[in-house]
């Protein structure tokens, strides 16, 4: 079997193992761990759009909300009908949850397609604004749909999200993004990012690449939304506003755009950091925004964007070997 697939299976098994013993983990830490996993999915999937493909989307929270609402509606309404008040066995619940997550993801992907086709002809700032606009429109629509709770949101969502689900999907997201970008087809994303005009000149359909990246990104955002809904047990339209999108964008930038390990580290750091900063809660967001500005001024390529070949060369010199390879 190919190595990435083995890693994926290994990660899922590990997630299953950890989940099995989750009763022994302090609930507070379990919450943080789950939050980290969801943010990893969001950041890595957005990285495909903002990092690898070089488009600037500010609507990730909008897709997340589509997935969250859709999957919550399924488990709430369908679960009640299928299992009655008894609630069904663990296996039945798991199956339903899985189906709900996938449907949520597909719903978000369809929304991504609908948003992507018209707007991806635009560039840079304009694309950022249009995606932001779509995110806000989605939010206003959810606020107005009474059957989904309107402005109050949906309550009483069953508590299905476990470490197993979150980390399996996190592993799947990383697997998909990494394998896609490394594939022959996936080089097109990088080419679109590097130089759109040159890519078009050699015959790449850049708009198509952008849309594919957008749809895949939206799918995983939808799944993450479903996980989030079944983790927080209550969702409101305002929970998925512009600020949430920015939060995810910051993770991608901090990690270094188009650098999956860096983005994962940033997602972990930015989920844990607010917990650590609880003591200085009121300064949290000020520090956060300052960090963003200073980072752009000092390390514009991201905090975790290291040049590995240079580090290796330097290490080799230090260890006494010849550093020639690195300087070539």
């Amino acid at each position, binding site marked *: 079997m190919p190595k990435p697939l083995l890693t994926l299976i290994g990660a899922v098994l590990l997630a299953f193992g950890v989940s099995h013993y989750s009763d022994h983990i302090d609930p507070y830490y379990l919450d943080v761990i789950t939050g980290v996993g969801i943010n990893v999915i969001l950041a890595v999937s957005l990285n495909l759009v903002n990092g690898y493909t070089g488009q600037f989307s500010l609507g990730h929270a909008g897709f997340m909300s589509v997935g969250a609402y859709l999957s919550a509606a399924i488990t709430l309404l369908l679960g009640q009908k299928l299992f009655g008040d008894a609630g069904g066995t663990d296996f039945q619940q798991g199956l339903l949850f899985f189906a709900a997550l996938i449907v949520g993801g597909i719903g978000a992907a369809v929304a991504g397609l609908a948003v992507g086709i018209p707007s991806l002809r635009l560039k840079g*700032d304009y694309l950022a604004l249009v995606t932001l*606009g779509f995110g*806000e429109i989605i939010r206003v629509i959810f606020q107005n749909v009474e059957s989904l709770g309107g402005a109050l949101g949906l309550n009483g969502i069953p508590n299905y999200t476990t470490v197993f689900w979150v980390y399996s999907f996190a592993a799947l997201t990383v697997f998909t993004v990494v394998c896609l970008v490394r594939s022959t087809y996936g080089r097109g994303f990088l080419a679109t990012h590097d130089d759109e005009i040159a890519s078009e000149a050699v015959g790449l359909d850049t708009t198509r690449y952008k849309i594919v990246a957008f749809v895949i990104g939206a799918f995983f955002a939808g799944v993450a939304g479903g996980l989030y809904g079944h983790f927080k047990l209550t969702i409101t339209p305002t929970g998925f506003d512009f600020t949430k999108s*920015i939060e995810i964008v910051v993770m991608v930038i901090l990690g270094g755009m188009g650098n999956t390990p860096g983005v994962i580290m940033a997602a972990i750091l930015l989920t844990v950091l607010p917990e650590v900063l609880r003591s200085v809660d009121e300064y949290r967001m000020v520090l956060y925004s300052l960090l963003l500005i200073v980072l752009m*001024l000092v390390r514009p390529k991201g905090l975790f964007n290291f040049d590995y070949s240079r580090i290796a060369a330097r290490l080799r010199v230090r260890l006494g070997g010849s550093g020639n390879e690195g300087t070539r």
Partner: protein
Amino acid sequence: MTEFLQQVLNGLSLGAIYALIALGYTMVYGVLRFINFAHSDVFMVGAFIGYYVGEHLPGGTVWGGLVVLAAAMAGCAVLGILIERLVYRPLRGGPTLNVLITAIGMSLFLEYTGQLVFGATPRAFPAIFPSKVISVHGLIISMNQVIVILVASVLMVALEFTVFRTKIGTAMRAVALNPKAAQLVGINIDVVISFTFGLGSMLAAAGGVLYALNYPSIDPLMGVVPGLKAFVAAVLGGVGNIPGAALGALILGMVETFVDGSRWSTYKDAIAFAILIGILLFRPAGLLGRYTAEKV
């Protein structure tokens, strides 16, 4: 008919406020080619300066109101120039994405520092201008609306004069057209950009005070929504185009007021974005904008 005229009047005063904010966006975009996300927060700071100055002045007089406006405008001009000098200038010439992100960071910084300094709870804005309500054949005209429209018109005429009739305005237009060529003919780009930020921030501050007058409660996050809408207005008129921004803002103000008065009023906040998406799809250069070919 009266109701229609009433809505037109309300739309006009809302549009005038959007126009004041939109002009700042459009001018900065004209010279620097980036969206100054922090602009909407300069608008908020303007309202707060107005609040603090207004507290210490006898309310309800015309000169008091004008002093408040002038103070807010001066304060924000300094703030705008400082932001540009400290944050945007070091990044000039860098990748656009980085500048955009820095602008978002600056916006968040102003908002959350505002929450620390001013407190997050909304406050009532003092009535700094004389408040009177005139009723003409059932048409209710509040003094505040008249002031909003008057002040906005005066400021826009002043801006038009500055940009098209003065030396610095000519330099601004030259930089917007071609920064390198402008530099070659001896224009100091740094001065022009600082001036643009100052001018734009002044207008935003005036917008902030006028907005606070009509919607008399202010909080540190008040700038977000009007700011986004004003940007939509700028895009609608053709970003980088000064008369376009004013036109777009008036259209947006009207449309929003009429939607607010209809039975789809809960979708009021979505309509601006729907317009944005529509205009970008069918006429990306905006109503008055000109298409430019991209050079390789």
